[in-house]
């Protein structure tokens, strides 16, 4: 069971909606404006890196997870 879940979600929350929005924007733009879709994807890459950093930093912290048994 993750022990720092609330803090991790508070850190990740600001980028979740923009990631979804940029992802869907890229999907909507791709058939018409490939470069604009790639630009949205590139911008999304920064947010995705931040999200992965949140997971890596908190998930690999000491006592991040309580295990039973």
């Amino acid at each position: 069971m993750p022990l720092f879940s609330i803090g991790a979600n508070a850190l990740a929350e600001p980028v979740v909606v923009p990631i979804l929005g940029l992802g869907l924007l890229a999907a909507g733009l791709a058939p018409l404006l490939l470069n604009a879709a790639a630009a949205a994807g590139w911008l999304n890459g920064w947010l995705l890196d931040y999200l992965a950093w949140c997971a890596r930093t908190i998930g690999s912290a000491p006592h991040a997870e309580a295990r039973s048994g």
Partner: protein
Amino acid sequence: MLSARPVQLDGQRGGLGGLSDRLRESIRGSLALGVDEKQRSLVRGIVLGEDEGLGEELRDQFRASGLCHLLAVSGQNAAHVVAGVLLLARVLGVLRVLAMAAALACVGGYVAAVGWQPSVVRAAVAGMLAVLAWLVARPRDRWYFMLVGCAFLLAVSPYNLADPDFQLSFAAVAAVFVLVPRLERFLAGYPVPARLGSILAVATAAGIATAPLL
């Protein structure tokens, strides 16, 4: 003992199923633009609920940090699709009736692309009812929206009741409705910014309600 032979694809589905498959493939392809391989796996997890491409280590870290729910499509995604379309329509100055119709079409397309998962269907039903309520000038009640979604899913298949996605989704939403206002009032007594307080309240409420199921 279970043994299996390699699967061979003989063709594609037709009809609505085929349309859903093509839509999903199109979105998958678009999500690969402008990002590297790791980012691609992550964004596909968040938008489409596909986390197969993520490495074992990163997936473990998402689980250990309590963020693995982000790698599954949730009802929140459907709600954000509706909100995003309405926001975009407002920026572009589109008539509100047309914006509502576009929101309905987009959320329907999104549900078709990601599959009929209980949490997504629940949110899509709620979003559609909210839009319809506005179109016919009827009052909105979030409990009613949630219960109609629940009734719809159970009418489609009563076995949904045993689906962990169904249980987690409705437990989290009911907890948000019941606990978040109380937690926000509690946090208002402390020097916590309102936005952060709201995030903490939602995360705490959802965490409390879903912990026994996880």
